[in-house]
């Protein structure tokens, strides 16, 4: 409960800070002016068909412009506009993008984001599942035989993968597998043109998914596996594990019920802490592989200085992060009874 409140506080403060920063540096003025200009242009086109006299046209447009300025609040300084902006974003009224269009041609940021989000989620969830399985299999195996070759390999692998930039690894992968060995595509989510048959389409998707997933997995699994291994080793030395064996439980049961289940909460905590990494990883990996998700969108927005889109995406990213943290905290409470009544 308490955690939930503090997370919401985070969201608010981020939003707050973002808007302040944008306002104080004058960018929000630019955005709104830009929006007004766009609308004026559209209106001008319409009106010029109706009003033939150029002087009348200009006068009419001036009046409309003043109305617009007033309605967007540009006649007042930014700190008065702020609450309204915050409210709008909170209500997910994210406005329009200046430079990007959704695949269906819409300018609305919410449409664009909604289109891209599943792609990012597909990528992230796949990597998450693989990491989870890997850490259970490899991490636990290494923990049950500390000092073995596998265990030492795990330590070295984690150290190296920590120092390895995931985006450079991605570039390397493309160079090796797409350019030299020519076995995987250079990027993107589907081939152009994408196959029409749904089965072939899924195969095409999986084929395109391989390199980004491989890259992200190599870059992030290191710490997962190492954390799992360390915590499992510590847990396995606890007295209740010996007691469990004394009670005659078969080794597999001891492993699952007494070691892994007990190690789950601290492992989960560490994963929560590493979640932020994932978001960053999404942005970088999607950029390298031209994967049409929110990460690439963020990159494109920055490159083309599309302020409205940047603001919206920063907020959405933070929101997703908060939600994910929230879910993990709930999971944690479910898994560790010691926390339940605290």
């Amino acid at each position, binding site marked *: 409960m308490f955690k939930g409140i503090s997370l919401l506080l985070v969201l608010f403060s981020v939003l707050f800070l973002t808007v302040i920063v944008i306002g104080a540096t004058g960018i929000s003025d630019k955005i709104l002016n830009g929006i007004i200009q766009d609308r004026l242009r559209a209106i001008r086109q319409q009106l010029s068909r109706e009003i033939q006299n150029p002087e009348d046209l200009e006068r009419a447009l001036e009046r409309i412009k003043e109305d617009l300025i007033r309605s967007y609040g540009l006649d007042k300084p930014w700190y008065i506009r702020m609450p309204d902006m915050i409210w709008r974003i909170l209500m997910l009224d994210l406005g329009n993008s200046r430079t990007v269009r959704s695949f269906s041609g819409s300018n609305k940021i919410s449409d664009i984001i909604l289109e891209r989000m599943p792609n990012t989620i597909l990528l992230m969830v796949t990597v998450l599942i693989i990491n989870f399985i890997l850490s259970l299999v490899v991490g636990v195996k290494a923990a049950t035989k500390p000092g073995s070759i596998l265990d030492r390999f795990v330590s070295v692998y984690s150290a190296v993968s920590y120092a390895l930039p995931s985006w450079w690894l991605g570039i390397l992968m493309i160079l090796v597998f797409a350019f030299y060995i020519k076995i995987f595509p250079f990027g993107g989510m589907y081939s152009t043109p994408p196959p029409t048959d749904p089965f072939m389409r899924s195969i095409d998707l999986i084929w395109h998914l391989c390199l980004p997933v491989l890259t992200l997995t190599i870059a992030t699994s290191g710490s997962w596996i190492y954390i799992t291994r360390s915590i499992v080793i510590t847990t396995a030395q*606890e*007295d*209740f594990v*010996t*007691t*469990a*064996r*004394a*009670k*005659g*439980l078969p080794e597999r*049961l001891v492993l699952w*019920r*007494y070691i892994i*289940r*007990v190690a*789950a*909460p601290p492992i989960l905590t560490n994963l929560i802490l590493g979640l932020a990494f994932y978001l960053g990883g999404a942005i970088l990996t999607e950029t390298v592989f031209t994967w049409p998700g929110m990460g690439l969108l963020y990159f494109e927005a920055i490159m083309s200085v599309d302020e409205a889109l940047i603001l919206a995406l920063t907020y959405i990213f933070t929101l997703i992060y908060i939600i994910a943290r929230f879910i993990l905290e709930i999971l944690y409470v479910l*898994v*560790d*009874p*010691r926390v339940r009544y605290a």
Partner: protein
Amino acid sequence: MVLLEIKDLKLYYKTMRGLLKAVDNIRLSLNKGETLGLVGESGCGKSSTAIAIMRLLPRNVGLFEGKIMFNGINLMDLSESEFREKIRWKKISMVFQGAMNSLNPVLKVGFQVAEPLILHQNMDKKEALKKAREMFKLVGLPPDFVDRYPHELSGGMKQRVVIAMALILNPEIVILDEPTSALDVSIQAQITNLLKNLKKELEVSMIFITHDIALASDMCDKIGVMYAGQIVELSSSENILLSPKHPYTQKLIASVPLLREEKMPEFIPGAPPDLVNPPKGCRFYPRCPYAERELEEKEPPLVEIEEDHFVKCWLYSG
């Protein structure tokens, strides 16, 4: 009727410095319905003896040999799976040192007590939990505590749970390793009483490991005094208490503070020997007030000086 007979038991551990001779050739016997106390300082090998009997050997075992006769079978002849199926927890169970850590923190205590039933007797969960409730009543816990988690229980309660857990399969022998050391004195008394009651009601034989000789004399019928991995004296608790023969036993008795006497408790000078390189002869030699130079090299045998009273000392072996 002799239930358990241990002869020439050795358990050595492999360490960085060499072989640690934790249990070095001991002999013990336990009769049905008896409580045998195993007394000694920390590091003398009492817990290792328990581990040896329960065959819960760690990874770094160097040597494990000897005879452990239980109901006529040498337990050392059994394979690990045979031992696990037939003996461990079913016939011989254990209450470990530090009950606080013997319980899995994420499982309900009732389930942990019922687990052996589900596992070994193929009972279904409901049935097993019912039995657990009965066992809880027996050890003095309210039956609906079965739904609690370990962190919701006090130290004394946890100890009772662990005792219930050890008794659930109705074993013939229960080994208790310092069951009261981590508890405060009033709870200690409760647990001691509980154990005495259980002994009477269930007719279970116990091996009671402790460093507190006074406690042992209260609880146990027979006491074995261990020093540096060896049994140095073994007899009934009266004999041990009232006519201790081995100098170490004597010093142990003398170190207990007495409530009504003015005498200061004595302490034993020196420290226990290094079990990687123990003294070649009598291991107590460096601290023994009766030590004589010539006896340094040779190890005294364990001899029966009177009926059921064994001592390992040159003072009694010519």
